[in-house]
């Protein structure tokens, strides 16, 4: 089934060929894991263990009383070495539990399969998802159980699986669809049940025909789920754009998908939900694409949460000497890192290594009002005017130009012929506006 496209967007190169044909390989079990207490948007967890404690694989080691939060679990069995701060992809060091593995990988007693999982009620499914520490694995890391708990007046009609993987370079979701299509569908069905939604969509960009085929096979015979073939265009996987394309509904400005009766889940999240509900496994590992011309052997790997990036990179032959940028996530929205001394967390979809030629920055020139940023903006705002306002410190003006509606996809900065850092300026404006609103 083919679908119309959304307004705006860009067509960067795919850069996926290095890894899209490579099956996911499990990473070597780590000898030490560093598990940050904050791997999600919301309240950070408090450690439930202390230095010297013995922990089992899958044991909950951190939790929080806040509703918008997700617990964290040990990804190995072994001994807690220390509780200390560690580097975090978002830049600010966070508290983390350091666990030395005993190499046994003994599961914790709570990890029990549920053969009769189909009989679970919606509330039970949501509780399992919360306890398993599942968050949005596309990179946003919003706690999944919160997404699945809309206020009662909001009826959810559609659950959408975001399988667009519109970020260049990344192939983790693509591999997951080829290797575990049934689990994705199971996860989707569980979410549909949890929010009592009658219909499901799996939205895949048309540059992954094999994934479309695999998913179509996996949903065969189920008329409530539609595999949607989407136009390959960035940011096709942006939540609001995906909803618009699949359902024709437009999430109101400042609103959430639930306002138009939709819930969106990433491919990886669906697999995590399936694993958690059927096998009792909390979220302790994920598929990571390690790629870019700055790495020796690009790979898709199943990596335990808490594995140090250095260790993952080592298993891919190490960095090439000309690496200039290390990015966690994709090239359009990923976070550049000052160094590789930090752990893989639940939202780490990719480890992207770019080289000199790819990171070259041109000088910033005055805006020539070519309006290319306006043409590509998927939320139809005018980045050039916001950028101009911020450049001159006029943040209130930036608010008038709808800076708060920006989804930070980066299309404007990508396309700008004057090489102006538009989305970066908009982020500054958003930070300033949000700070003023809180006052």
């Amino acid at each position: 089934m083919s679908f119309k496209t959304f307004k705006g967007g860009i067509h960067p190169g795919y850069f996926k060929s290095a890894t899209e044909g490579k099956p996911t390989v499990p990473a070597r079990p780590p000898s030490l894991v560093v598990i940050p207490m904050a791997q999600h948007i919301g309240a950070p967890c408090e450690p439930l263990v202390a230095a010297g404690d013995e922990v089992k694989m899958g044991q909950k080691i951190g939790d929080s009383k806040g509703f918008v939060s997700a617990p964290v679990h040990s990804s190995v069995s072994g001994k807690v070495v220390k509780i200390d701060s560690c580097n975090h992809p978002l830049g600010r060091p966070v508290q983390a539990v350091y666990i030395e593995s005993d190499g046994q990988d003994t599961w914790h007693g709570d990890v029990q399969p549920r053969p009769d999982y189909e009989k679970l009620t919606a509330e039970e499914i949501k509780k399992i998802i919360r306890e398993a520490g599942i968050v949005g694995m596309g990179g946003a890391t919003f706690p999944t159980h919160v997404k699945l708990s809309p206020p009662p007046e909001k009826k959810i009609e559609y659950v959408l699986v975001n399988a667009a993987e519109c970020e260049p370079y990344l192939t983790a979701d693509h591999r997951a669809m080829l290797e575990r299509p049934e689990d994705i569908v199971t996860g989707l069905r569980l979410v549909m049940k949890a929010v009592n939604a009658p219909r499901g969509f799996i939205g895949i960009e048309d540059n992954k025909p094999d994934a479309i085929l695999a998913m179509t096979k996996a949903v065969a015979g189920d008329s409530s789920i539609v595999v949607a073939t989407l136009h390959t265009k960035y940011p096709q996987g942006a939540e609001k754009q995906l909803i618009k394309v699949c359902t024709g509904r437009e999430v109101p400005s400042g609103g959430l998908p639930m306002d138009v009766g939709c819930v969106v889940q990433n491919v990886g999240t669906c697999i995590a939900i399936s694993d958690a509900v059927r096998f009792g496994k909390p979220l302790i590992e994920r598929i990571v694409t390690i790629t870019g011309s700055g790495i020796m052997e690009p790979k898709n790997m199943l990596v335990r949460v808490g594995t140090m990036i250095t260790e993952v990179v080592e298993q891919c032959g190490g960095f090439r000497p000309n690496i200039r940028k290390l990015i966690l996530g994709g090239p359009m929205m990923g976070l550049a890192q000052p160094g590789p001394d930090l752990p893989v967390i639940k939202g780490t979809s990719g480890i992207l290594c770019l080289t000199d030629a790819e990171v070259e920055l041109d000088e910033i020139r005055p805006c020539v009002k070519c309006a290319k940023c306006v043409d590509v903006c998927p939320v139809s705002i005018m980045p050039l005017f916001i950028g101009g306002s911020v450049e001159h410190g006029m943040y209130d003006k930036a608010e008038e130009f709808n800076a708060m509606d920006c989804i930070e996809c980066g299309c404007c900065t990508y396309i700008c012929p004057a090489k102006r850092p538009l989305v970066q300026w908009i982020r500054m404006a958003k930070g300033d506006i949000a700070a003023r609103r809180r006052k």
Partner: protein
Amino acid sequence: MNKALNLQFSTSPHLHSQANVSTAMRDVIIALIPVSLVATYFFKLNVPFLIFVCIASAMLTEVIFRKIMRKPLSLHDGSAVLTGLLVALCFSAATPWWLAMVATFIGVGLAKELLGGLGWNRFNPALFGRVSVILLAPWITFLNNEFFHWRVSFPGIDTVTQATPLALLQMGLPLPNMGTFFFGYPGGGIAETSSFALLLGGAYLLYKKHISWHIPVSMLATVFVGVAVLGQNPFFHLISGGLLLGAFFMATDWVTSPITKKGQIVFGVCIGILVVIFRIILAPTEGVAFAILIMNAFVPAIDNATRRLKFGETRTPVPAQQGVPVQKTS
């Protein structure tokens, strides 16, 4: 390990398109080569000479102004070269070099650099320069008298004396054959010699996506319909008097045209209406240049009036339900 890696740290996006201002300017210059060649065929060396004078004075003006204002030089963005070329194409091949030089100086110096340089100019620099020397007629007469002895001309200048097709039409004289006129006819300005060459250049710009169809099409369609309604031959109007140069190369100037597609159509239609008024009611000279410059002044107003709805916004605002369903667990 970090030090050895020498990593660059910046916020996303980490990918950038290849497009930049210099290549866009270069492509516009490429698009103007065909018409320059046709004009050179008719007027011989006079055309390259005038183009050379304009480009050189444009570059010199930019350097002088930037030096005085202590700004970094920006010749590499190619906008000075392009403006110089466009000024030259607006003139007839018999134009004395000092006149072209004054026009370029005013266009690049006053209309662009004094307003802050490329991106900050409100009016199309080339047209501003061209029109200025018309409005400064008494001063120009003085210049013409003073400089007459330094006039440079090459063989082939006599062809320039032919009346422009638009003037012929106005005077009710017989017009040249349409095909000749379309492919190459030595009357009027350098850029008026061949509509075909201009369309070729325009098509190239459209293909390269430096311009969109909205301004040229709305502008040309308005003129076509307008003159047809007023009882003149619309085809002759389309391919004469610099209308095509204006539609594809002047009105579409990034800096001085509206942002949104809707705004661009409004802009094109308004220019078209002004062109019709100038051509039918007023004198048949530089109607396109004046029309575009007048509408340049309205671009901010057009931008403001044609703001798009942002994603998730409706014309009749409904209160958006906001916020995350935060339930307190105690």
